[in-house]
């Protein structure tokens, strides 16, 4: 359902990092996150050496060899066998071998960031909603995945040839047709925009730059829908901040904060905006969640390689940020990039089932249901940044060891989260709330169970999604 408080939807799409890689270790402080603890998942190299998932991800210099993420690469990563070898069920076992084949260090592909290394991402994750079941739409590279974000489909394409989008109805043109405004803000003319270049012939209608976005935020003149693109390359003292390997992840974390701060620069803008931060695809980097089957295929299929677009790609990080979402919630709803135009359609154009042109968007889960808070939240996240020196030291720490969380006393943060979830449940489902008692939560295991039960009521689809994800 459209939300009358929301006048603007902003999407920031970053590049090529998996959920476990950026947000997985948040599980160590928020057990409800379907992330990793370290050494709890592993891949094997060609020689049979075990490569566990660990911390130790570095801001840059770790992926000088860009990890493969074309369809054939992702097939290997998901199924553990080379493309062309029949396999029925993904087991996420081929990341290390895939990277090894390219000449990369297979241990690096399993590395994750400590939350303290990414103060902006972690700070926002703690303060707003983590979507831990957001999958790339296609087990493949950038452009078809971005096509889903702009069109709700990739028209049966899995490759990086950009021309196939030409003359198709993107969400921007659909917005224009309905007298709404949808714009792409790319970072700078030297950085460029990805995929929608055919719209550049109508530059002023559909495009702005980072400076235009900042100005629109501070003037409270954002269009109805904004899609923000980071800088895709270094330029004259500015780092590429898209986080594509081997660009600086720290620069991307700063840009994420800058986007948030731009929206916060005007209270009216903040109080009427919903921001989604999401990555286009995993970039060949390990994630443990098995991508689920697609519930409603859209009829487009690929002939070469044969693919029916019936399974999602590898999981990516995603945050929903708004003054109207509760703090610290982990949403287990299954999303994919068709879930980007779908809520835009839902909010501004009409129900996706009738107003979206393609089936994947028509049936995609939207995230507007997360807007459950009545009064706008004005508190700010804690962006207490780890200094580069501290981050380097962190990266050099010994690998973390798995440990049981069961008996660990609940942290203040988690206790707060339990209370917030309970408040949400009490507001929306008072009947079910009677059976839960936040005061009884003493350990992290208690908290995990409490939040799990509450969320199963608040978001019943999340439970279904979990079932699918494990399928």
């Amino acid at each position: 359902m459209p939300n009358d408080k929301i006048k603007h939807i902003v999407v920031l799409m970053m590049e090529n990092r998996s959920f476990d890689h950026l947000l997985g270790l948040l599980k160590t402080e928020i057990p409800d996150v379907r992330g990793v603890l370290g050494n709890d998942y592993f891949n094997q190299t060609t020689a049979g050496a075990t490569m566990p998932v660990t911390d130790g991800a570095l801001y840059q210099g770790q992926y000088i060899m860009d990890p493969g993420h074309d369809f054939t690469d992702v097939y290997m990563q998901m199924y553990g066998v080379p493309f062309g070898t029949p396999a029925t069920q993904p087991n996420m076992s081929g990341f290390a071998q895939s990277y090894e084949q390219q000449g990369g260090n297979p241990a690096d592909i399993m590395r994750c960031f400590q939350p303290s290394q990414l103060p902006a991402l972690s700070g926002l994750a703690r303060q707003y909603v983590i979507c831990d079941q957001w999958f790339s739409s296609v087990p493949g590279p950038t452009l078809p995945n971005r096509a889903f974000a702009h069109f709700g489909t990739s028209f049966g394409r899995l490759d990086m040839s950009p021309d196939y989008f030409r003359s198709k109805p993107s969400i921007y043109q659909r917005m224009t047709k309905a007298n709404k405004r949808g714009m792409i803000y790319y970072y700078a003319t030297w950085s460029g925009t990805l995929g929608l270049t055919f719209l550049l012939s109508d530059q002023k209608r559909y495009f702005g730059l980072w400076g235009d976005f900042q100005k629109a935020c501070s003037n409270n003149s954002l269009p109805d829908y904004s899609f923000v693109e980071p800088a895709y390359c270094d330029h004259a003292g500015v780092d590429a901040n898209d986080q594509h390997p081997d660009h600086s992840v720290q620069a991307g974390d700063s840009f994420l904060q800058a986007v948030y701060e731009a929206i916060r620069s005007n209270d009216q803008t903040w109080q009427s905006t919903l921001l989604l931060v999401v990555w286009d695809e995993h970039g060949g980097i390990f994630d443990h969640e098995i991508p689920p089957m697609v519930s409603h295929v859209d009829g487009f299929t690929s002939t070469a390689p044969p693919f029916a677009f019936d399974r999602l790609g590898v999981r990516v990080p995603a945050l929903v940020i708004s003054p109207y979402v509760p703090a610290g919630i982990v949403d287990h709803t299954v999303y994919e990039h068709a879930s980007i135009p779908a809520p835009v359609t839902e909010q501004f154009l009409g129900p996706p089932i009738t107003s979206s042109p393609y089936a994947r968007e028509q049936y995609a889960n939207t995230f507007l249901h997360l807007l459950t808070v009545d009064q706008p939240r004005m508190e700010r996240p804690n962006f207490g940044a780890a200094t580069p020196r501290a981050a380097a030291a962190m990266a050099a720490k010994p690998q973390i060891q798995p440990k049981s969380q069961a008996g660990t006393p609940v942290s203040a943060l988690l206790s707060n989260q339990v209370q917030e979830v309970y408040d949400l449940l009490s507001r929306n489902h008072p009947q079910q709330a009677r059976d839960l008692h936040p005061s009884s939560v003493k350990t992290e295991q208690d908290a995990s169970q409490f939040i799990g039960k509450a969320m199963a009521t608040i978001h019943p689809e999340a439970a279904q999604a979990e079932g699918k994800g494990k399928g």
Partner: protein
Amino acid sequence: MRMKCGILLIAFAACLSASGTHAQTPAGIPDKAEECDKRAAQEKVAWAKSGPHDWVASDFNKQRVETGQTWCHIWATNGYDRVHKGEDFGRVFLTGDGLHPTLGSIVPGSGLAGGLALNLDYAAKSHPVRFSGAVEARGSVNGFWEAGGTLNLLGSGKRLDDRHINVTLSAIHRELPQLTFFGLGNESSLANQSLFGLSDTTVGASGSIPLPKNFQILAGIEGLWAGPQAFHGSTIPSIEQIFTPANTPALNTSTGYFVYGAGIDWKYPLEECLQCWYKTDASAVFRSYVEGTGAPYSFRRFDVTWIQAFNLFPQARVDLGTFSITGRLLASFTSTGNQVPFYLQPTLGGTDINNVDVLRSYRDYRFRTPNALDFQAEYTHKIVDPLGLLLFYDVGKVALARSDLDISHMKHSFGVGFTLRAGNSVLFKLYYAWGGPEGSHTTYTGNTNNFAADSNLRGVF
């Protein structure tokens, strides 16, 4: 896949490696283009299977595969699409990581030049520094050549505004055997046209440090060695046949300098925006040239540039083009007994030795003195991508004495031209200019390194 930049930011791998029979053909792309993608995917898989490979080898292989793929795309498409496919091919073939051919000019008068550039990027693991380097050499049909290398170090520590310290180390040598010289001053005569050769070598470092309020500090040090030579391979006289050291400082003298300097740059607004109606870029730099052998040619130079661009009616739906005004002041200072060597003096007329256009209706290097002042007004408008229209009006003068730097008796030029843009940068420029008593001047400039857009000007030159 590592992304390339430019207004058409496109990556070029495909993952099509097998064929099926049951599914529909995706709309919107010719079958031939799919064949190109399939072949590229097969080559990519074959490379991965033959690994492991080091990252440099992988970069070279990627360049090879993508070059073939984009070349194939040109012939797989028709009509206007071919223009864009040609741009894609140019970007892959001529820029980016790896070894590339380069094409363009060296300086005005060099004629068409070609060469090779090797570009590589690297990011440090343990320090917040990103490196990009290039080595390049090119030679021209008229016997000019240049070779050099640059290494750019870009800070990558945490900054909310993503502005970082930027340092460039460079070493460049040029052999420019026939440059024109007409004598010094505004009143030099066309009849005194002569030729001289110039060898120069620079080795140094320059950098910028971001400051608040959109300012940044500029600083640099370098060693500069330069020497003129006679040129007798033409019907035009060599320089020493017309001029003497008395009227042409350092006519027969090579010089070696330690150069150091600093300045400040200001941009407003800092972030690029399409809907801003103006943009300002101003800089002021002071440099000291200390002659190292004791010859009386030490000097100091003050260089001010102000560029004011106006985006015409930014809110209009139709692109109405950009109007810009540029002002440049270059003033030299010498101690008693010292002079500025003629070959290190700025020039107005046509295009200068740094490939900057000034007083375009006049011959290249037409007016030369230690001091210069010029203003330009330009209007640029996209006709049909990538072709653009250029209208311009230039005024300027040179001055033997700084006190003569004023706006009286300025020479002027106006003209029309066309630009061929690749992404956001001008790949090729052709213009016709007239105005003043010396007739008209038609010229072109180009550089395939600009295919990478001004973001990642690759190669060295």
